[in-house]
């Protein structure tokens, strides 16, 4: 165990990701809770101002403080992405594991289903489901996770195939280990690596997808704020004022690249070759 953690620690991508994660936590988790002020507070006298000491990132078209909006929006975007990725990885694990441990026919059917889900036009289906009725965060999370489990499933399936053919699993079956014991003792530890790296990379993808949906107005609704909804205001900014675009870009860049680096670092250090010493 310690060996593995050591190696992960050494990976440059991961280290960079950790530093960025610190920033992300500060901006998205800590600051929104300690800084006073309402991100929705409008002050029409102070629209479109450039950054001042009072408003670090300036104000938007309704006089709202951009910095406050960004940190709250970033927090919500992250919450949504972290939850969605969790569901997505769980679904992927289930389907991938079942597919990998099943006879060829069921495996084939499940893999075709995975292809099917890959083939859905995601954004149109989001429009379909989210465009009507009342908006609920749960609905958003469920819909997002239903269309993002496929990558994980494929990886889990091929890893399961590999574990299935390993001698230690065969020996464990010969000792009469129950199916659930087999899963938790032998399969899960070997799958943990790809599950965690899959999760982290998934978070970075979902942040982008969720902000895209919120940007076109079908995601998070006011008074809640997401990074996407903030960017929607950028369309109405005077062409000389780059404050909203630059700062919101920085936030999105920070959030997505953090998990991208973390995930890449984890992926590089948890592949099989490590253990075939």
């Amino acid at each position: 165990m310690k060996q593995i953690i050591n190696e992960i620690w050494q990976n440059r991508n991961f280290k960079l990701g950790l530093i960025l994660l610190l920033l992300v936590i500060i901006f998205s988790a800590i600051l929104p809770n300690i800084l006073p002020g309402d991100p929705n507070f409008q002050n029409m006298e102070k629209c479109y101002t450039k950054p001042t000491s009072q408003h670090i990132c300036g104000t938007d078209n309704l006089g709202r403080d951009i910095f406050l909006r960004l940190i709250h929006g970033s927090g919500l975007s992250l919450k949504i992405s972290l939850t969605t990725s969790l569901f997505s990885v769980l679904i992927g694990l289930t389907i991938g594991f079942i597919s990998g441990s099943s006879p060829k026919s069921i495996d084939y059917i499940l893999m075709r289903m995975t292809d099917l889900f890959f083939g859905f036009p995601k954004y149109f289906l989001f429009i379909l489901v989210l465009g009507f009725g009342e908006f609920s965060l749960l609905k958003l999370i469920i819909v997002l996770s239903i269309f993002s489990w496929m990558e994980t499933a494929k990886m889990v399936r091929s890893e399961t195939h590999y574990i299935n053919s390993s001698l230690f699993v065969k020996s464990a079956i010969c000792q009469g280990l129950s199916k659930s014991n087999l899963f938790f003792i032998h399969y899960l530890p070997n799958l943990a690596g790809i599950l965690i790296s899959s999760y982290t990379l998934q978070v970075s993808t979902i942040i982008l997808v969720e902000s895209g949906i919120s940007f076109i107005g079908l995601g998070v609704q006011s008074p809640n704020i997401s990074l996407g909804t903030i960017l929607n205001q950028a369309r109405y900014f005077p062409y000389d004022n780059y404050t909203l675009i630059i700062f919101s870009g920085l936030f999105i860049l920070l959030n997505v690249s953090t998990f991208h680096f973390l995930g890449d670092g984890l992926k590089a250090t948890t592949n099989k070759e490590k253990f075939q010493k």
Partner: protein
Amino acid sequence: MNNLLLNVANISLVNRNQILKSNQSFALKDISFSLAENNSISLIGDSASGKTSLIMALLKLKPISSGKIFYKGKDINLFSKTELVQYRRNIQPVFQNYEESLNPLLTIQNNLYYGFSNRLTKKEKLLKLNNLVNLMGLNNNILSKLPFQLSGGEKQRITIIRALVTEPEMIILDEPFSSLDVINQEKLLAVFQQIKSEFKVSYIFITHKIPLIKYFSDSIFSINKGKMQKLENYRAYENLKND
């Protein structure tokens, strides 16, 4: 009259992805032998002979295409779940590839611990485990190590311990001596003999190191291209090879 532990009757195993073909190729063809209590048998065969398929068939990890395998008189294909578990725990394999036989992410203790019978308490399990470790001439602190920290010889001994955990009646030894020098072969031989006398196991011993089989041969068979043949004694193998 010794009790018959295992009776293999005319089993054949067709290579899976050729089931639909007209000229099928057999991994095992019409194999029969039996193993009585307190006896051991040796199988002489090299890599492409079908011995792996035979091991998998005996462990019921691969389905046979025809024929039957009887354990204490009952057809293993007709076993209920509990009977199957019982059977499997009584015929433990020691695979040739000990490098890959252990879960690389678990400590040695965790690799072995879960095979003990559930009737034992945790204390009893740990006690038995430590005894087995000592029996194999290993230090007890090996239990907290990870597989990659062990030498090849240590790993091999751990896989033998694993076979003993379920207190089996039969142990299948797949080429246990192949990567050892003569001195270590002798040592391992002594261990096997000790196990045989202490635990009363029957061995199914697969090797092509002919001189060693005399210790485990109440019966000797040769296996080649899926077919099996009974031999008079181990010297007969030399004649067979020259055919």
